[in-house]
C-alpha cells in the first residue's frame, strides 16, 4: 500500500509537470497565435511599442519558451528574483510569479483565497453528501411512493437548474425578501465562526443543492441495485435486523460509487467553484480565476490552474486508496 501510494505520488508529480507544461504552453503560445502577445496584455490599454519591447525583456518573453518554462519551474522550486522598478524583489519558493495586474505574488494570493474555497467546498460537501445520500436512500426504500417521486422531481430540478439561477433566486428570496440572512461578507472561521457560517449558509445550500441532486439519484439507483443483491438476502436470512441490513450491508456497497464521485467532485471544487463564488461574491480561487481570466492575468490563471490540477490529481489518488479500503477486491499494487 505504501509503495503504491509512493508510486502514485510520483505519477501525480509527473502529471502535474505535464499539466504545467501544457497550461504554460497554452497560455503563453495561444495569445501569440492570435496576434496578441502577453507583453501587450501586460502593458494594458496603451500598448505603445516602446513599452511593449521593454516589457518583453523585463518579463523574459524575449526568451525561447523552454527558457521561460525553466524559469517558471525554478521559481516554484527555489524561488526567483524580480525587477520591481526601484529595486529587486525576491519571490520565495514556491514562486508562481507575480500578477500582471496587481503585482501581487501569486502563491500567497492563492493561499489567501484557499480558506474561502475550502470553507465553501467542505461545507457544501457535507450538506450535499448527507442530504443527497439520505434522500436517495429514503427514495430507494420507499420506491414509487409519493416521497420517492418528490425527491426525484426535486433532484431533477437540482440537476437542471444552474447555480446562476438558484443562487440568485436564493439570495433574492432569503436575503432581500424574507431577510432571513443578512447580506454579509465572508468572515474567516477563526475570526468569528458564527459570521463565517452565516455568510456561507446560502452558498453552501445552493451549491449543495446542485450536487445533492446527483447524489440522491446515484444513491437511489445504487441502493435499488444493491437491495436486489444476493448478499443482502443472505444478511436477512441470517436474521439481522432490517436496520442493520440497510445500515451496514447495503450502505457499505452504496458508498463505493459515492466515494468515488464525491472525491472527484470535492477535488474539482477545491480548485474553485467559479459560478458559486461569483454569484455570492466569495473571494475564493474560482473568483480569482474568473477575474484573472477577465483581465488576462496569465500568472494567476496559470497558478489557479496548477492548483486546481493538483487538487484533482490528489483527489484521484485519495479516491483510489479509499476504494481499496472499502473494496478489498481492489488490490493496490
Amino acid at each position, binding site marked *: 500500500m505504501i509503495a503504491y501510494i509512493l508510486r502514485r505520488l510520483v505519477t501525480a508529480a509527473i502529471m502535474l509537470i505535464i499539466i504545467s507544461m501544457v497550461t504554460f504552453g497554452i497560455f503563453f503560445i495561444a495569445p501569440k497565435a492570435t496576434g496578441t502577445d502577453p507583453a501587450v496584455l501586460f502593458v494594458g490599454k496603451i500598448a505603445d511599442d516602446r513599452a511593449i519591447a521593454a516589457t518583453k525583456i523585463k518579463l523574459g518573453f524575449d526568451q525561447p519558451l523552454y527558457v521561460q518554462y525553466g524559469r517558471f519551474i525554478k521559481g516554484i522550486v527555489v524561488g526567483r528574483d524580480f525587477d520591481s522598478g526601484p529595486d529587486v524583489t525576491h519571490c520565495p519558493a514556491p514562486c508562481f510569479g507575480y500578477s500582471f495586474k496587481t503585482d501581487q505574488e501569486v502563491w500567497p494570493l492563492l493561499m489567501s483565497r484557499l480558506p474561502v474555497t475550502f470553507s465553501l467546498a467542505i461545507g457544501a460537501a457535507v450538506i450535499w453528501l448527507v442530504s443527497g445520500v439520505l434522500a436517495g436512500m429514503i427514495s430507494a426504500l420507499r420506491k414509487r411512493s409519493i416521497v420517492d417521486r418528490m425527491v426525484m422531481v426535486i433532484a431533477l430540478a437540482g440537476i437542471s437548474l444552474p447555480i446562476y439561477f438558484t443562487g440568485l433566486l436564493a439570495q433574492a428570496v432569503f436575503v432581500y425578501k424574507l431577510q432571513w440572512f443578512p447580506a454579509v461578507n465572508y468572515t474567516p472561521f477563526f475570526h468569528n465562526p458564527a459570521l463565517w457560517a452565516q455568510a456561507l449558509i446560502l452558498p453552501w445550500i445552493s451549491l449543495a443543492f446542485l450536487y445533492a441532486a446527483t447524489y440522491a439519484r446515484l444513491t437511489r439507483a445504487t441502493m435499488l441495485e444493491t*437491495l436486489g443483491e444476493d448478499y443482502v438476502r443472505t444478511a436477512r*436470512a*441470517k*436474521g*439481522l435486523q432490517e436496520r442493520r441490513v440497510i445500515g451496514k450491508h447495503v450502505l*457499505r456497497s452504496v458508498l463505493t460509487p459515492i466515494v468515488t464521485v464525491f472525491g472527484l467532485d470535492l477535488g474539482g471544487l477545491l480548485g474553485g467553484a467559479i459560478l458559486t463564488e461569483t454569484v455570492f461574491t466569495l473571494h475564493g480561487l474560482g473568483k480569482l480565476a474568473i477575474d484573472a481570466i477577465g483581465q488576462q492575468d496569465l500568472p494567476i490563471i496559470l497558478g489557479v490552474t496548477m492548483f486546481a490540477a493538483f487538487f484533482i490529481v490528489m483527489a484521484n489518488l485519495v479516491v483510489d486508496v479509499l476504494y481499496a479500503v472499502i473494496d478489498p*477486491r481492489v488490490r493496490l499494487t
Partner: protein
Amino acid sequence: MTTGLSTSAEAYTAGPPPRVPAAFLEVRDLRVHFQTDDGLVKAVDGLTFNLERGKTLGIVGESGSGKSVTSLGILGLHRTRSNARVSGEIWLDGEELISADPEHVRKLRGRKMAMIFQDPLTAMHPYFTIGAQIIEAYRTHHGGSKSAARRHAIDMLNRVGIPQAAKRVDDYPHQFSGGMRQRAMIAMALVNNPELLIADEPTTALDVTVQAQILDLIRDLQDEFGSAVIVITHDLGVVAELSNDILVMYGGKCVEYGSAPDVFYRPEHPYAWGLLGSMPRIDQEVRDRLIPIKGAPPSLIHLPSGCAFHPRCQYAEHNGIPCRTVVPDLPKDTDHPVRCLLPVPERRRIFSQEIAPKL
C-alpha cells in the same frame, strides 16, 4: 387467507380451526403471488408438504418453477420490501409463521431455520471478511463477546473442512475458491445449530468433484446436528441420493410428491420422466444421456389452460384425455400423489414400458 382462484382440492379455505400438526415442518397450501407491472405472478400456488426432524426433503423442478420462492417464503423473506402476497400456513415446531410477528420470525431466521444459497460468490458480502460474516450471524442471535464468536467461527470453519481456518477466517470471500466459499457459506448457516436447514441449489455453481464433497458435507452435518433439511435442486439425481422424500414442482405447483424411491424409481408424472431423462448419468455417453424436455417453462402469469404441462407433454390428449381443458388435481388420499389426468395404471405402464428402458 387463500385466494378464490384456488384450484387445488386440499386448500384449507374454511371449516374447522387449524390443527397443530404433528410434523416438525408442515407447509399447507402455501401461495406466494407477486404483483408486477405485467400482471400477477403466481410463483408458488398452493403447495403442501411435511418434513420431520432428521429427515431430508428434496424439491426438484426446472428453474423458474418456484423453488427459491418457496424456501424464501418459509424463512419469511418475502415480508421485507416486497411486492409479494403470501398466504397459507407454515408450521414450524408447532408455531405458525405466516401470521406470526415479523420480529419473532426474524429471530427464528438464522437460528432455528437457516439457508445455504446457490451462488456463494454473490451470496456473501464482498466487503466483509468470511469471519466477520460468520461472527455476525452468531452474535445476532447469541450476543457475547467478539472473541468468543470468533473462536466459534473458526471452529465451524474447521468443521466444514476449511484448512488453516484460524488464518483464513480473516480472508475475504474473493480470496476463497468456489468450493471453499460454499463450505464457508455452510459454516455460516450452521453456526447457530439450526433445526431446519434449507439448501437452495447448493452445488449448482460448483464443478462436479466439488459438488460431491459438498453434498457429503451436508449429509454428514445433518447426521451430526440432526436437523431437518430441504435440498432444492433441478437435478433429480442429487435429490435421490440425499432425500427421504421428493417433491416435483412445475409452474409453481407440486406435480408429484412421494418417497424418494417412489419418485426416483417409479415416477408417474410425464414431467418427472422428463427430469429423469435429462439427468446426467455417469454410466452413459454425454451425447445420449441428456434428453431435455422440449419447450420452455410456462408463464406464471398466464398458465396454460387445463394441465399446465400440456404444451410440452408427450402424452397430452393421450387416448383422448382432456388435458387442455380439465385442470388435474393432486389427490389427497395417497402417499404418492401425482397431478396428471392419465389413469394410474396407464401411466405406470407407460413408465415401465416406454420410459424406463430408455433411461
